[in-house]
């Protein structure tokens, strides 16, 4: 069952990524296929809601299948709560995206839930790294992990700074501008445990467990990429790349949902 759902998800992801990328690459498409048409926005929104709903429910089911004393249970609960918060944010945004007249305000209530998701994801990723260490997997000493975290922070700052400077330097002081700095900043913070978990998980390549972590970590990386691009392009007022943003979030939420489904299949098999 989960395998069929996963295949269906990959087909949807591939089709939408191809469509949205084509819209950016060839903006002069026939009417209705042009960038960010209302239909595209609604399709993207529906797919995101579906991925987040499946991810949330399945992540809770994964947590429920792990014993109370299992160190992976709390991070799975945190993952489920992070996905749930993102789902509520997306559902709030959907109210506007499905309305023919009202344009979505920015910031809105949706942003409250998007921002609320970050602490859950942070706790989840740190919790998974801690679980690896607790049960004795060789992921390096605490000092080594701090060193890698410092390295990841430095790289993240070097990469993000050129993208964030135009946002910070843009005129005015508004909620939108503040959020355009807050989102990428939160993503940079989230990137540190993501990197630590990626480093700890890379030796799993070739095994079934890697299929779970490869998909989950892809989801977190694309979430960060999407937020940084959103902040950059919305500050500069470049709307023509909106389809690319949709594609980025669809890959993110889709990969997270696939990762969670794979984990549940591992637990249930």
């Amino acid at each position, binding site marked *: 069952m989960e395998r069929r759902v996963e295949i269906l998800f990959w087909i949807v992801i591939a089709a939408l990524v191809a469509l949205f990328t084509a819209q950016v690459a060839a903006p002069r498409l026939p009417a209705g296929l042009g960038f960010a048409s209302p239909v595209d926005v609604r399709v993207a929104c529906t797919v995101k809601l579906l991925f987040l709903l499946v991810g949330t429910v399945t992540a809770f089911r994964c947590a429920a299948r792990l014993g109370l004393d*299992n160190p992976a249970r709390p991070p799975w609960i945190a993952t489920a709560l992070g996905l749930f918060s993102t789902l509520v944010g997306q559902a709030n945004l959907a109210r506007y995206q499905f309305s023919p007249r009202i344009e979505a305000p920015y910031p809105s209530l949706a942003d409250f839930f998007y921002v609320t998701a970050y602490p859950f994801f942070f706790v989840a990723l740190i919790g998974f790294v801690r679980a690896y260490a607790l*049960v*004795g997997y060789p992921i390096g000493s605490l000092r080594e992990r701090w060193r890698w975290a410092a390295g990841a922070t430095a790289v993240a700052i070097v990469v993000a700074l050129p993208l964030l400077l135009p946002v910070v330097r843009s005129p005015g002081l508004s909620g939108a501008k503040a959020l355009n700095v807050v989102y990428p900043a939160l993503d940079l913070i989230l990137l540190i445990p993501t990197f630590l978990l990626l480093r700890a998980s890379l030796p*799993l390549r*070739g*095994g079934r467990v890697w299929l779970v972590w490869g998909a989950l970590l892809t989801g977190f990386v694309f979430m960060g990429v999407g937020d940084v691009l959103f902040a950059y392009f919305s500050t500069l007022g470049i709307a023509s790349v909106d389809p690319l943003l949709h594609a980025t979030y669809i890959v993110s939420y889709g990969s997270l949902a696939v990762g969670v489904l794979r984990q549940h299949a591992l637990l249930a098999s």
Partner: protein
Amino acid sequence: MPVDSARALETIVGTLVPHLGTTMAKAAVAAHSQRLGIDGDEISPEQIEALLHKILVGMSIFVGREKAVAISEEARAAVRGLGA
């Protein structure tokens, strides 16, 4: 009855590879063995049990307790086969 340490560890690694991949399976068994002081030419049944328990706990975070027990049973049977 003690069995050849290298063969026993290799057998346990082989059981874990489909789940953890070759690199992590080898690294996990080596790390657990080191902690348990398994470094001689032979490995005692008690050491094997201690190692399998560590593996069970480690696998539980990825596949849950039930499946981890099944994997550790599989490894136990494979190591027993070496002594037969």
